[in-house]
């Protein structure tokens, strides 16, 4: 599935490129999508009582405590309070899981918890319950720096994600990079293009009138250039997610975000 881990040299080259501005592709300092939003949209995100994403958080909190599977286990039963158990977790995902021998994002991790330890039927990748659990878990990283771990295991995924990010696709023949690196801050029809950062997910998107995951957003962008999107939860999208997390490393996590 994935190429074999590359020698440490590759890792060193990557770290070097990231440390020296101008060598990495994202030349501009990372900037949250928040800073490109209208003040009214920012105000919605700023106020936990107005922020529509908080419905998800409430729902997620209930699910965290809900008994599931034949033994009636709950996430809280093993982990305790979500506030302490999940502090900082979302900020360092996607992460490599040695048992599954693959890179996992939060959704895949939660599915593995349910199918494995709880012997429950996992929520679908795109189920509202899944979105709610990722929201409550991501909230526990709010204000912390997004920073995935780059090591021998994750490096091949990072390369794969970068390649996807830079490859032209679809009938409109565009790569993520064309919009989010080359034209951030400029108007594309009614939208101001941001850097395409993922620090605020799950986001409540006004255009959708509902919240959505990182992979739903990737899918939307690919569809808008008339490309065949990768599947949500696929290796391709998880690799792309890792690349974006690394590209935006240092940004403060802000879930649940609100976007236009």
């Amino acid at each position, binding site marked *: 599935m994935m190429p074999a881990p590359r020698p440490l040299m590759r890792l060193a080259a990557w770290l070097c490129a990231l440390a020296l501005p101008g060598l990495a592709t994202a030349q501009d300092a990372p900037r949250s999508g928040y800073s490109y939003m209208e003040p009214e949209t920012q105000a919605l995100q700023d106020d936990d009582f107005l922020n529509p994403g908080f419905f998800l958080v409430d729902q997620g909190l209930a699910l965290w405590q809900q008994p599931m599977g034949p033994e009636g286990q709950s996430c809280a039963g093993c982990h305790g309070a979500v506030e302490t158990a999940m502090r900082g977790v979302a900020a360092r995902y996607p992460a490599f899981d040695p048992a599954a021998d693959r890179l996992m994002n939060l959704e895949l991790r939660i599915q593995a918890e349910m199918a494995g330890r709880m012997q429950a039927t996992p929520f679908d990748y795109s189920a509202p319950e899944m979105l709610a659990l990722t929201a409550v878990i991501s909230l526990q990283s709010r204000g912390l720096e997004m920073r995935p771990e780059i090591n021998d295991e994750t490096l091949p995924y990072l390369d794969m994600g970068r390649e996807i990010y830079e490859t032209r696709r*679809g*009938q409109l023949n565009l790569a993520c990079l*064309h919009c989010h690196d080359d034209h951030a801050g400029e108007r594309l*029809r009614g939208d101001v293009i941001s850097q395409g950062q993922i620090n605020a997910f799950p986001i409540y998107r006004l255009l959708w009138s509902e919240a959505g995951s990182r992979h739903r957003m990737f899918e939307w962008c690919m569809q808008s250039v008339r*490309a065949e*999107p990768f599947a949500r939860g696929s290796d391709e999208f998880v690799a792309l997610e890792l690349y974006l997390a690394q590209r935006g490393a240092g940004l403060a996590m802000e879930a649940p975000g609100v976007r236009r």
Partner: protein
Amino acid sequence: MTEGSVPVARRHGHIRWPGAAIGLFLSGAAAAGAQSLPPLTEVAGDPARGEALLRDMGRASCLICHEISQLDEKDMGEIGPLLDGVAERYDAGELRARVADARTLNPDTMMPPYYSLDGLAGVARAYRGQTIYSAQEVEDVVAFLLTLTDEAAQ
């Protein structure tokens, strides 16, 4: 393509490209630097149809990236140059070459190829094997672009 890699003059259309005008074909004979393309059909383009098409958001509208001041549209994009007076800068053949496949002028362009399948990858099933515009639609849009004179922009 970084900001710096597209010369400002080119973005605003002041550079005229050298070389003979050669016909381009969907086959991939498109030579980099080719600047002009003969009519794709026998039927002259219809500017009114061209305008409607160019404004149709369901058809990869040019207005995603370009502004044309005389159009009563809000939220026009600013990725590509303003198209006001574009008929003063280019003739029909040059406009056609740009609409059909802007990569023949700038391989790093962000402008989608409206009438070429060359090198496309990962196209969504619903659009596979199809160009964005038909040959006649290219003619219609070019006919509309030719109405964008300085006078029209007043």
